């Protein structure tokens, strides 16, 4: 059915009631529609409102369309997801004030939280460079010992538990691995003088994340994980030179990733020399790296609210998310608006003084402490048993500015 539209008075009027202070003049049809829809929204019967618009069939149709949109568009978060999100948020919100949101020092409060979010987007850009879809990284600036570090790790756990696609999980693991490395770099760059234990734990988590990424169906994800592993050695050596307390650990990790070519012993007289001059296996002192994803359920223990329901959880992945025991960093940051936006300028967090590790407030369900350097020997074994592929060169993931 078509109608003949009445020629409307299109001249907008700035003195329309209720909009005298509007910056933009409202044209009459828009004003009339707004009033009609607000009447319906406030409880007036749709038929009554539309009936009062007999002189403008098009406007009446728009109001009906708005009502249909209001019926169809509202959505409800799925029950299990809702419960999990609420549990996580209640846990994060319920921590003592001094450890929940406020940093060390008076009046830090939200002014400190805001630049943390700004730097989060830097990490998210890094995550996007790895081809992530919906996975979101919380923050690259929260470091072990910071008051929000536990929340950050819990958010990672929650996000991982809600990611079901194997390739997306693998991509997220790779992003988390990069985050762990960036945390190591940040601890050293900011003069926090991290201990060997802290670095060992982060390295272990980095390795575990890259191992977990092998669960992807897409072989490109496994390649990315391998590339991340292959390109880390030089960076670790550089960091070792700048972190005296953790130099041995960083150096050992770099060596494990990129072992020097061992000297070849002279072959026995009765054995022909290998045409490629094959290398002997390095001595091993631990079990080899597992080829399947371990199912310890450690990831679930880190998430507030307890274990993930079996209906939601994919094969659990051992990704320790415990909060490392370091004192909160003392940071100062510029003030900002009350709501975080994408236009937030980068933070200017001040490095805190070096300190010995102390107990920080754990998340609501504190996971068990990881074993020290759980994978160092296993990594060495894996690298020794798998000769480098001469046809493949390590690829660096391009970083977007």
């Amino acid at each position, binding site marked *: 059915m078509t109608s003949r539209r009445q020629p409307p008075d299109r001249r907008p009027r700035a003195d329309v009631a209720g909009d005298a202070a509007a910056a933009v003049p409202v044209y009459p049809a828009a004003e009339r529609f707004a009033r009609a829809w607000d009447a319906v929204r406030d409880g007036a019967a749709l038929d009554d409102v539309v009936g009062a618009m007999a002189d403008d069939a098009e406007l009446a149709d*728009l109001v009906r369309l708005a009502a249909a949109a209001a019926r169809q568009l509202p959505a409800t978060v799925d029950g299990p997801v809702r419960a999990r999100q609420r549990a996580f948020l209640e846990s994060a919100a319920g921590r003592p004030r001094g450890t929940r949101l406020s940093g060390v020092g008076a009046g830090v409060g939200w002014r400190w939280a805001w630049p943390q979010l700004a730097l989060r987007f830097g990490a998210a850009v890094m995550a996007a460079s790895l081809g992530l879809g919906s996975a979101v990284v919380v923050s690259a600036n929260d470091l072990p010992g910071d008051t929000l570090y536990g929340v950050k790790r819990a958010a990672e756990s929650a996000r991982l538990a809600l990611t079901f696609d194997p390739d997306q999980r693998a991509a997220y693991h790779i992003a988390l691995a990069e985050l762990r490395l960036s945390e190591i770099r940040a601890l050293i760059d900011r003069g926090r003088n991290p201990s060997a234990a802290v670095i060992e734990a982060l390295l272990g988590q980095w390795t575990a994340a890259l191992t977990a990424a092998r669960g992807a169906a897409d072989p490109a994800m496994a390649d990315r994980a391998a590339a991340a592993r292959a390109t880390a050695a030089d960076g670790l050596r550089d960091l070792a030179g700048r972190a005296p307390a953790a130099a041995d650990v960083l150096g050992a990790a770099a060596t494990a990733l990129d072992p020097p070519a061992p000297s070849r012993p002279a072959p026995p007289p009765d054995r022909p020399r290998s045409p490629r001059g094959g290398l002997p296996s390095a001595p091993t002192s631990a079990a080899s790296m597992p080829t399947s994803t371990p199912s310890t359920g450690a990831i679930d223990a880190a998430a507030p609210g307890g274990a993930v329901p079996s209906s939601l959880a994919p094969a659990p992945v051992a990704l320790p998310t415990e909060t490392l025991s370091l004192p909160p960093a003392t940071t100062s940051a510029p003030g900002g608006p009350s709501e975080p936006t994408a236009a937030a300028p980068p933070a200017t967090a001040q490095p805190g003084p070096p300190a010995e590790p102390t107990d920080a407030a754990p998340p609501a369900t504190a996971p068990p402490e990881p074993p020290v350097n759980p994978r160092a020997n296993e990594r060495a074994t894996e690298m020794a048993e798998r000769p480098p592929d001469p046809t493949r060169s390590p690829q660096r993931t391009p970083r977007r500015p």
Partner: protein
Amino acid sequence: MRETLAERALSNPMDERALVERARAGDGQAFGLLYERYVDRVYGFVLFRVRDESVAQDLTQDVFIQVLRGLDGYDWRGTLAPWLLRIARNTVIDHWRRLGRRPERPMSAVEAEVDGDDEDSLIGRVADEEGEMAIGQAEAWLDRAAFQRAAAQLTDLQREVIALRFASGLSIRETADAMSRSEGAIKNLQHHAVRALRRALGRDDGAPSRDDGA
């Protein structure tokens, strides 16, 4: 509908303020109640914008994490809704930026006037954009999928105002606060958006809509 709209749109300001204060003081359950009060409105907005349930769930959690972080500095203005939805709006924008996506369609003339406040241009361009429309087709195949397909043909601002006004149930004032625009601009924008939606529905024959990067 009367009860659903009123129930969804109204929240007791006094109760909500008390919840905010308790949440600030470290009462996790109070924050959980705030979450329950607003999660569907946030989720509805985000889902309409990103059209992917799992992405929308992730981003919804992001929104509440940001709310938790910023709660200490929030100035009470009668209701959390505009602030929450502004955070949701920014979260969606940041999501598209992370993915390297650009606004799906150039701004329409009305949206340009929302920014530019040019009265004469507004009159002329609205006249140019109006065409003959079939009245009465609006309610045909009005399920969510039809709305989503039609919304793909709208501009980013149009989708945003529709999401805030109809998916989240915000008032004009709240929508204006969330979008940092005047109430007059929102009125013009929503009218134009609904008209555009209606045109898109009128052209919708069930075929997949143009992929606009979502």
